[in-house]
């Protein structure tokens, strides 16, 4: 019955070995040119003049201020979008109501809007020639070209991340666990804390991770509302732009390398979550 081991049969629903090697080589060549080399070049350019210059570029006061502002903005925008994501996913996944699919479409809206337009809408809303502009000015409230504007623009572009991870996950899980807890006498909050939250924690973490990466790296929307005031309204990506436009390449790539590291850490954590908890725990959509 068994075939002699030296005769190899090829599965007819499979490519020839040579074709496989060629296809893999072609894909890898494409990925090298468009993914790997850009990533490697960030670090090569950053260390072009050695550790000394690299370190100098990162501890310089404007760079430190940019890092601090980026962390501050993410620390405000991510928790707010997390709260929204939880609320929206609870309402959408645990209840049947009219207009639900329209609401899901609206939540996804920021993904299909150019980041520049996301910034522009706030300029039109709060700018000096808008309806609100003069009122805000007379009360001494600064939104545009100040931190609140940057936070708003960041919230806008990172708006869907947590919600769209949680909605399919919680829809899959249904309402059985919650109904059981409630029928056993748990209060609404207890049900949420002890039943729902443990069920969704990895999906939640996944959404927060992606939301945070985008919040710290957002460029277009923030660039429109920030006014680029050094040391005051410059986030890290904007600082990279200014340094680059001044031909201070080593410093630009040094700050950029921090953002690239953030991206690599995000990818690593994301991969670990997907491997350990399966695509199901992590929504599986982007």
């Amino acid at each position, binding site marked *: 019955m068994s075939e002699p081991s030296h005769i190899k049969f090829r599965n007819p629903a499979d490519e020839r070995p040579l074709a496989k090697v060629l296809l893999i080589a072609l894909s890898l060549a494409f990925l090298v040119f468009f993914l790997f080399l850009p990533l490697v070049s960030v670090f090569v350019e950053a260390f072009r003049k050695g550790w000394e210059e690299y370190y100098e570029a990162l501890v310089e006061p404007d760079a430190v201020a940019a890092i601090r502002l980026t962390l501050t903005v993410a620390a405000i925008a991510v928790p707010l979008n997390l709260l929204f994501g939880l609320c929206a996913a609870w309402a959408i996944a645990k209840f049947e109501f009219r207009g639900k699919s329209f609401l899901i479409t609206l939540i996804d809206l920021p993904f299909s809007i150019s980041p520049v337009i996301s910034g522009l809408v706030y300029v039109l*809303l709060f700018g000096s020639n808008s309806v609100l502009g003069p009122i805000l000015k007379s009360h001494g409230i600064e939104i545009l070209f100040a931190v609140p504007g940057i936070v708003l623009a960041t919230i806008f572009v990172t708006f869907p991340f947590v919600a769209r991870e949680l909605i399919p996950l919680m829809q899959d899980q249904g309402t059985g666990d919650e*109904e059981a807890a409630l029928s056993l006498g748990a209060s609404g909050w207890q049900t949420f804390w002890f039943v729902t939250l443990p069920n969704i924690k990895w999906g939640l973490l996944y959404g927060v991770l992606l939301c945070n990466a985008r919040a710290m790296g957002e460029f277009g929307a923030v660039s429109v509302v920030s006014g680029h005031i050094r040391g005051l309204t410059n986030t890290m990506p904007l600082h990279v732009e200014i340094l680059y436009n001044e031909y201070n390449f080593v410093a630009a790539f040094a700050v950029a390398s921090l953002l690239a590291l953030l991206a690599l850490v995000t990818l690593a954590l994301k991969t670990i979550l997907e491997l350990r908890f399966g*695509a199901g725990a992590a929504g599986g959509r982007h």
Partner: protein
Amino acid sequence: MTHSATASTARWRLKQPSIIPGFGMTLGFSLAYLSLIILIPVAGLLWRTAGLGWGGFFAVLTDYRTLRALYISFGTAFLAAIVNVVFGTLVAWILSRYNFPGRRLIDAMVDLPFALPTAVAGIALAALYGPNGWIGSFFMPFRIAFTPLGIVVALIFIGLPFVVRTVQPVMEELDREMEEAAATLGANRLQTIVSIVLPALTPALLTGFALAFARGVGEYGSVVFIAGNIPYVSEIAPLLIVIRLEEFNYAGATAVATIMLIISFVMLFVINFIQAWSRRRYGNG
């Protein structure tokens, strides 16, 4: 429970009855937050455009610089999405079908453009494809960076994961028995792939294309560094919005933004339509 369920069929109600609490609070907060952050600001943009009147709107729309910027944005996004459909499908194919050293790493790295800030990608690509860069110097005197071709390069980078991540799950769920049946009926491998595999992938390919294209049209951060930004030649529509804003030409910025917004809504509609169609036809999306 029973009589309220029958009542729900009788009269209109917002939601089906449920013993789970918190509907009012969570939906209320979601709607309020959605309105404040997204709906009111976007409505403000449309309201400002309406204030321009048809005449003002068309004056901006038919301005040659606006038309060129839109043409460049859509043209480069289209080319990049085509390249991404071809190579993204290839990458999805080797990731889902073949086993080779480093497959896991490559699978994880495909998401890099999602995670890497666009400005970082922009300066890295500009350095790499610029006249003195590793790749750019190789092609000299033919220039890649600071031409429309540079825009395409940046948009290929940005759009790749959209195609791979749309096509890959569908590929993994394909029924191999269909391919084996084709082979036993005498089809060679290429015939099987063209007439069995590709048709099943078509909805995913279209969705991936549309997602990459839509993202490419609005992309700003990665493009401005590599484009050269020469008006009429390599100036994209989002950059034109920024330039109009810097000139305090709010009418110009608003009108260009509205055109782009309308086109992205149409794209969103098309993507939803393709996905609904493929769910009906193939049972996957």
